């Protein structure tokens, strides 16, 4: 290299000291900011709690909110993978219906309780994953917009669910399957709650696993790289075909799992279920700070997004806000959240 002289010991030390100082400063500011945020949130939650006469933060209600968001949080987790690659998946709501009725069909045909659950789960996840592959293939092979391919799947899967059931729900009579959707895992009546709902455990496990994949693995790095600059990723040897196809498969398979929780809770496979869920999941992703342009975002953010939306609905119910007004508020909150996030980003990353 040009200035081929090795850096002197002093200059290296001075550089390292400066860097260490800068890092320490950055850590301090981050810590202060985090503390301020937590304090602010605590005050806000306290006020809201007081407004609901202590119902909002009652352990039973908190668990209830977590259970309510579990289906959306799982859908949004898959959606996050897709959106970080700059794609979108509009089919997840319909896939809930399709995999739900198919699982109900399998459970009706299989008399063994254990085998029924295993077969139904396999069918749900693999049909969801296969639908995801059908979403993704035209995207990676022919460069079709994912908006179109998943819109087509949204219509096809919904129609197929109705065709399969003739429009009627299929009842599920399998206690083990229903346990997955509505069972509790006991915590010995600690924290004043009877137990942690199984869907909450499954949701947390999926969010944790997804977060690990995105932040710590090669696959996750490639997902971000493709969303950031697909051509540069390809020229760097990233198997764009496989990675992009995988995110649609992941999204479809997670829709199968979300469907399992929903069908288990409702004790039936319902062809009308999951309507509008694709938009709810996209809302959670964007409120969680993931960019629809791709390359940026996080699964923890998505979980927080789903949680915020769920808390908001819950709070409005506790405050007896009528349901039409709830959607108006939710829409406004989504807009405000994304706007705030954008302003914050501009403020902190000028230059």
């Amino acid at each position, binding site marked *: *290299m*040009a*200035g*081929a002289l090795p*850096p002197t010991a002093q200059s290296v030390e001075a550089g390292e000291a400066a*860097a260490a100082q*800068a*890092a320490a400063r950055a850590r301090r500011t981050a810590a202060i900011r985090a503390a301020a945020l937590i304090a602010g949130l605590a005050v806000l939650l306290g006020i809201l709690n007081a407004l609901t006469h202590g119902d909002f933060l009652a352990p039973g209600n908190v668990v209830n909110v977590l259970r309510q968001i579990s289906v959306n949080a799982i859908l949004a987790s898959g959606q996050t993978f897709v959106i970080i690659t700059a794609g979108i998946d509009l089919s997840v709501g319909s896939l809930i219906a399709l995999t739900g009725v198919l699982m109900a069909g399998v459970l009706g045909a299989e008399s063994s309780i254990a085998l029924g659950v295993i077969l139904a789960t396999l069918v749900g996840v693999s049909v969801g994953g296969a639908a995801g592959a059908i979403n993704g293939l035209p995207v990676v092979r022919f460069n079709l917009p994912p908006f179109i391919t998943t819109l087509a799947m949204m219509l096809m899967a919904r129609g197929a669910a109705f065709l399969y059931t003739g429009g009627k729900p299929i009842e599920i009579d399998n206690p083990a399957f229903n346990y997955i959707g509505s069972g509790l895992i006991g915590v010995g009546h600690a924290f004043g709650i009877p137990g942690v709902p199984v869907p909450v455990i499954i949701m947390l496990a999926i969010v944790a696993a997804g977060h690990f994949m995105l932040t*710590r*693995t*090669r*696959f996750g*790095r*490639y997902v*971000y*790289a493709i969303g*950031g*600059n697909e*051509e*540069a*990723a*390809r*020229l*760097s*040897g*990233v*198997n764009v075909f496989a990675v992009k196809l995988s995110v649609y498969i992941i999204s479809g398979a997670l829709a199968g799992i979300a469907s399992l929780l929903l069908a288990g809770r409702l004790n039936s496979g319902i062809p009308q279920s999951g309507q509008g869920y694709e938009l709810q999941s996209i809302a959670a992703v964007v409120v969680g700070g993931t960019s629809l342009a791709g*390359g*940026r975002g996080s699964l923890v953010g998505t979980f927080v997004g789903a949680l915020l939306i769920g808390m908001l609905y819950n709070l409005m119910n506790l405050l007896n806000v009528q349901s039409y007004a709830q959607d108006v508020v939710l829409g406004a909150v989504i807009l405000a959240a994304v706007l705030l996030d954008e302003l914050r980003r501009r403020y902190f990353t*000028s*230059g």
Partner: protein
Amino acid sequence: MPIAQAAPYLVLRGISKSYPGVRALDGIDFDVRPGEVHALVGENGAGKSTLVNILSGAVAADAGSIEIDGRTVTVSSPRQSEALGIAVIHQEFNLVPQLTAAENIELGHEPLRGMVIDTRELHVRAAAALARLGVTVPLDAPVRTLSVAQQQMIEIAKALSVDARIIFMDEPSAALTGQEVDRLFAIIKTLTAHGVGVVYISHRLEEVFAIADRITVLRDGRLIATKERADMTSDEVITLMVGRALEAHFPTLPPDPPHTTPLLSVRGLTTRGRLQDVNVDVYAGEIYGIAGLVGSGRTSLLRAICGADRYDSGSVTLGGAVLHLRGPHDGIAAGLALVTEDRKSQGLILGMSIRENVTLPHLEDFATLGVIDRPKETTAVATLSAELHVRSRSIEQAVRSLSGGNQQKVVLAKWLLERATLICFDEPTRGIDVGAKAEIYDLIVSLAKGGTGIIMVSSELPEVLGMSMRIGVMHGGRIVREFARGEATPETVIRLATGAA
């Protein structure tokens, strides 16, 4: 010269601007007189862009004052900047590709008749703006169908249509051919004759000395000198820009490696419409230069060799083994590296950190069972980044916020992290400053000394001549002639590359 007496139209005093961690401008005094060409030069990261951004209203200065015609003004939006008579012509044009030339020139201030656009008046005005420049461009043609040079003229006409008094031109000749540059200079002369002040920002010092009345040199955000052109020489300007004297442009090349068994052997490589029966051998430790115009097949050749594009027929042999590459991934695994021409669209993921960009092609070696070993990654990138003198706050900095030269070093680091046996460089020094260029030349030579085979494509003739052991000239998808060391002259290379031979 009357210019010397004219009162300046625009005066900046003590302009400063800091970004987190960087002092981009530090107390800059700068002025532009009516009818002069004032060249602004400096390495990447010297502060030229920041200065332009302040005057165009895109960013606000932290300190200092701006005066126009003796009055202190604030420039807080692009609209305000336009109203003050300041126009900026960026490297990437701000034209709407689907609209016609005339519509683009009048965009934002269309003449109206009632509620609708007065198309006839619009054409009259657009034609008048072009006539002032002494150029003709088809007014009804959609801008996307026009050449780069024509688009630039439309940008200039657009500036004139809002009565710009000062026009900033940021690297205006970067995408132009020699003839088109002459044309641009003629237009600049017309502008100055009408009393417009032109600020000419360029890396190309020959052009600066051909057109400028005064020259201002910036370095590291500070004003180094403002002088009449007549009082400066090109060497002086280079010294002021880099803060040290550069004796030789190019490093001394090592002797040719023995031409026994070639490292790379390309035979009959053909891609319909792009490559025609290309045959070339490159030896380990050799720097093989490729000269040729844009579209001659030089980039296609590199891409085909490295697996980025498929080819129809022919063979590529590396180290004795015939390659069957299905994509860039196979090329990398075989020991090939392609340093692409356009770092922003092909070389880097701008939103990612230096660390993430550098390890992207090699993640397999930094992961066990798919999980990335972060400490190992950090150590490797930090070491390499220091060796290459990448100027950044830390390796976690997003590459978007680095200067062009430093971005290019990150691209190089990507391909040096693991030793490739053959590296293809496509325009390795495009758009970067003199100092970073010299570092990249030294790096290429040291790679060759270490036994790496190098193919280097460049549009800059001196670079090809000064850096290559052998040179292949491409034209029409073929290597039309190969020169041994010392055989090539600028004239013969140009003649072959343009097909005039």
